[in-house]
């Protein structure tokens, strides 16, 4: 099929916001309840199992802290990319998005070393309820990091050619959400011992 022109529906903005932005917020709303359900389940269990603190003592807080720093820094480059996109500087926005993706990759590399280490020491998924939640919640978050990186790759690809610059902002909003989830996960899984 030939390339489709966008339907009129896509171009209208009766709500006063671009539709893509609106959709991103609704997407995040649905994501919040997914992580919300998981974390509420975890907190309830954690309260019922004081002995999980002994398990949590085996998590690597340093690695977690490094990852927190990496992820938060990558949000800065996402904001700068948005700023560049607003001034119409597509190539700069693309470069900054690639920098954000680099942060995501660093995050995943640190995480994979951390998990390898933990699994080698016997802290596997089935060791106890704590580790089940640990891998489940952090794994779901890591999937979001991967998905976000892929999406940002596509957005950066277009932005470099000066196309669809509004999407830089949407990608940034999604990335902040991924950060925010980690801000909850880090104290709940690493710091609370």
């Amino acid at each position: 099929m030939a390339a489709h022109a966008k339907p009129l529906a896509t171009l209208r903005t009766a709500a006063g916001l671009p539709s893509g932005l609106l959709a991103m917020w609704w997407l995040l709303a649905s994501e919040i309840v997914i992580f919300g359900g998981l974390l509420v389940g975890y907190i309830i269990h954690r309260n019922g199992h004081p002995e999980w603190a002994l398990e949590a003592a085996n998590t690597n807080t340093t690695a977690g802290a490094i990852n927190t720093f990496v992820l938060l820094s990558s949000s800065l480059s996402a904001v700068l990319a948005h700023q560049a996109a607003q001034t119409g500087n597509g190539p700069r926005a693309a470069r900054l998005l690639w920098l954000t993706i680099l942060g995501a990759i660093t995050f995943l590399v640190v995480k994979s070393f951390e998990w390898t280490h933990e699994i080698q020491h016997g802290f596997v998924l089935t060791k106890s309820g704590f580790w089940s939640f640990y891998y489940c919640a952090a794994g779901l978050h890591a999937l979001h990091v991967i998905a976000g990186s892929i999406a940002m790759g596509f957005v950066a690809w277009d932005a470099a050619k000066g196309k669809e610059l509004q999407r830089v902002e949407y990608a940034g909003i999604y990335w902040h959400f991924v950060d925010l989830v980690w801000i909850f996960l880090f104290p709940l899984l690493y710091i609370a011992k």
Partner: protein
Amino acid sequence: MSSTATAHHDHDHGHDGHGHHEEQNFFLKYFWSTDHKIIAQQYMWTGIAMALIGGFLAYAFRMQLAFPGKFIPGYGYMSSLEYNAAVTNHGTIMIFWFAMPVLIAAFGNLLIPLMIGCDDMVFPRINRLSYQVFLLSSIILIASFFVEGGAFNGAWTAYPPLSANGEYNMAGMGSTMWVVAVALEFVAFLLGGINFIVTTMSSRAPGMRMWDVPIVVWMIVVASILFMASVGPLIAGAVMLVFDQNFGTFFFNPQRGGDPVLWQHLFWFFGHPEVYVVLLPAMGMSGEIIATFSRKKLFAYKTLLYTVFATGIISFFVWAHHQFIAGIDPRMANVFTVTTLIISVPIAEMCFLYIATLYGGAIRLTVPMLWGLAFVAEFLLGGVTGIFLGASGADIYFHDTYFVVAHFHYTFIPIAIIGFFMGFTYWFPKMYGKMLDETIGKIHFWITILGFNMIFIPLFFTGMWGDHRRIYNYGHFPELVKNEIMQDLRIMATVGLLIMLSAQVLFVINLIKTAMSKQENPGPNPYKANTLEWAAPSPPGHGNFAEMPTVYRGPYEYSHPDREDDYWPQHLPPDDASSKKADGEKADEKADDKKH
């Protein structure tokens, strides 16, 4: 759809250089389309196919209950494991693969762009993806019947530990496929739901304010929001359940520090709003139909909307009434009893507003109107019996009896079956450009309603007398067969089901007769209705409208005193008020001009 499908494309998109469509082959047109109307058809017919499977399962297990251990024509002998798989998948299919795709996805896709006056969904390709994910989920569910151990048999609520352990339910593979299928189906409706919400917010026709949006569109949007806000915890729960099933975790295993009641909370936090997710679109459709065929303004439009919002909000605070006997804190049970009784207030209000709309109207008992009225009447029975179950004291006795089964079928059959026929018969001329046969339609209606009530009224009684649900053969429970009338009532319910199922042959005959008939196109507005979809040709072509409409008034200006006609379409400019000529006919002429 038909030959008019491309007639108006030039007019709408001529300026952007894509003036004509190349001839699409059958596959691209019906399986790879981004047109909201085609996607609506895909959802609708997939949903109907799934309903046939769900109906067949119902036939099989009702025959087993009426005539335990006997040969079931068309099925064979039913084992207890197959019985459990049949009831489990009957429930799953009817809710997730029939009610959801038909009421929300099919009618949402069909109606939202047409009723708010735009040419498509705001994200057409995401819309296509939504259906494809849904189709994949349907295939996985059907495939689960053919794996080792058979389909999942742990009831549609999938309570652990039964659902979490293949050793308990003897269907390890089938259980995982069931959870995966349900999770994929949720993803499909999240994609679709975001599209519905954003389309309604962003893409309304010029002049359409918040209070000019037809009630059914509002209700589908509110339903989509409810779905989106409630399904997340269950998606997380589904991941945890799959881990429990396959990787040996113990989120829900009490032996190792897990908590099976956590699943119940996650499930019902979604499961109860889900009732309203499927209820609201059906409620909205009946509102449209009742206003059109009463020739009266929908009574108290804004109040109706507020009741919808109230229902949506309260629906998040009632879930634990499903768990009164699960060992939850009695103080919590009290709170949930109160919220459950409160939520019946806005729902009752909706029914009263529809009755008030009927009062003094020029009622026309067309087939869609009969379905619309039956929806309100039958749903009331479901709602009223819900009061007994929502009260924790009474529920301890009624819990998991056939009283519950009869209660929720009195809500879900009006929603899903009656709701489907109501919407399908009302918008049939819009979808296909032909009118269904009214006589066959009425016979079909009455036999279906008769059969439906014949199934479930007896089950209220067997339930009150102690019939527990999910029992394979009541012969094994002497206290449930010593009263001879109990088995007679079970047989009566099965006969009712046979009547209801065979009535659907009339529906098929009606479809075939209409498809074969050489009747003329009834024109864009056969019912003289006001909402924007009736300004588009029947069936609407690509881009929907010959001329994109502008909205000048609310959707229910019937029998307006300043106007000669008893209807006043939303898109008619105010200076046309005295025009005697129906606008629909004009649009029709235009459409004809285009064609020639």
